[in-house]
């Protein structure tokens, strides 16, 4: 009896190892832990991308449930998700764009050309769909850092009390929306 159990041990270890490795094979390493979920949205005070004299702060969005979508024209996945986000907007979801400018670096003497960027954004949104109520420009990426953003696209769901409910890394599509966002919106 004892010996039989002993013989089966390697098989048991092997099966456990297989289960562990198989799980690792299908897990998404980009699925990061976020420091901001279930906490208040960090304070921001950012200019509008299209009308730089206008500034947006937390107070402007108080009482609304909305998405913050971090994106850039340099990012192919952002382009790919614009269509779906536009669909969401048509379904009544409020989406705020947070523009991630990554090329600009004052340390290397880069000059930032706002007019060119605005034109590029306009062209891209006209071509692929415009899901945004408005876009904010975070040139020094401080708000982006405060949000714990590691790249683009990333999407946050913020509720009426200004609490971050979801931090999603990667594109938003129907599957992601149903799994991560819709349950929290009571859809």
């Amino acid at each position: 009896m004892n010996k039989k159990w002993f013989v089966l041990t390697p098989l048991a270890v092997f099966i456990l190892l297989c289960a562990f490795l198989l799980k690792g094979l299908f897990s998404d390493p980009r699925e990061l832990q976020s420091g901001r979920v279930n906490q208040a949205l960090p304070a921001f005070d950012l200019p509008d991308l299209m009308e730089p004299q206008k500034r947006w702060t937390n107070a402007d969005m108080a009482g609304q449930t909305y998405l913050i979508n971090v994106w850039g024209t340099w990012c192919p996945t952002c382009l790919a998700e614009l269509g779906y986000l536009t669909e969401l907007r048509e379904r009544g979801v409020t989406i705020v764009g947070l523009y991630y400018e990554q090329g600009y670096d004052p340390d290397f003497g880069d000059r930032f050309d706002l007019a060119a960027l605005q034109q590029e954004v306009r062209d891209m949104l006209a071509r692929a769909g415009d899901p945004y109520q408005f876009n904010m420009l975070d040139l020094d990426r401080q708000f982006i850092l405060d949000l714990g953003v590691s790249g683009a696209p990333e999407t946050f769901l913020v509720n009426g009390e200004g609490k971050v409910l979801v931090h999603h890394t990667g594109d938003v599509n129907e599957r992601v929306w149903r799994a991560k966002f819709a349950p929290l919106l009571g859809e």
Partner: protein
Amino acid sequence: MRFVFVLLALVFAVSAAAVEEKYDFANDEQAALFAELTKELRCPKCQNQNIADSDAVVAKDLREKVEQLVKEGQSKDQVIDYMIDRYGYFVHYQPPVTPATILLWILPGLIVVGGFAFIILRQKKAAQKASWSETDEQQLQKLITRYKRKESA
């Protein structure tokens, strides 16, 4: 051989100079703290690299933030907490002891203790099993007498 040593010395001298050229800290402690922190903080984008090694935009931003916080005189723990607040425990290469990670600390100990327990138990069992019977005794006596005869012969 000496050539290799000289070459090695040169290689390390270059990397030491490269670290120092870009940042100007008020004192050596701050420079050391910055070097320590950028080695310990993990790049959230290009995984398995620390922020000192990585060229990702986010790693550069984090380096600059660490530089700024260190220059403000913040302690190591303050800087790490600042990053964990934003990027989660993922961003630090030293995982904290939490109910979910306690296994990492306990498991190696358990395996060692379990291994020793297994060996001792098995030895005890083996010792119990070896009972000395009458026939064994007779066989032993036979062998002894046989070899004794050989010796005397």
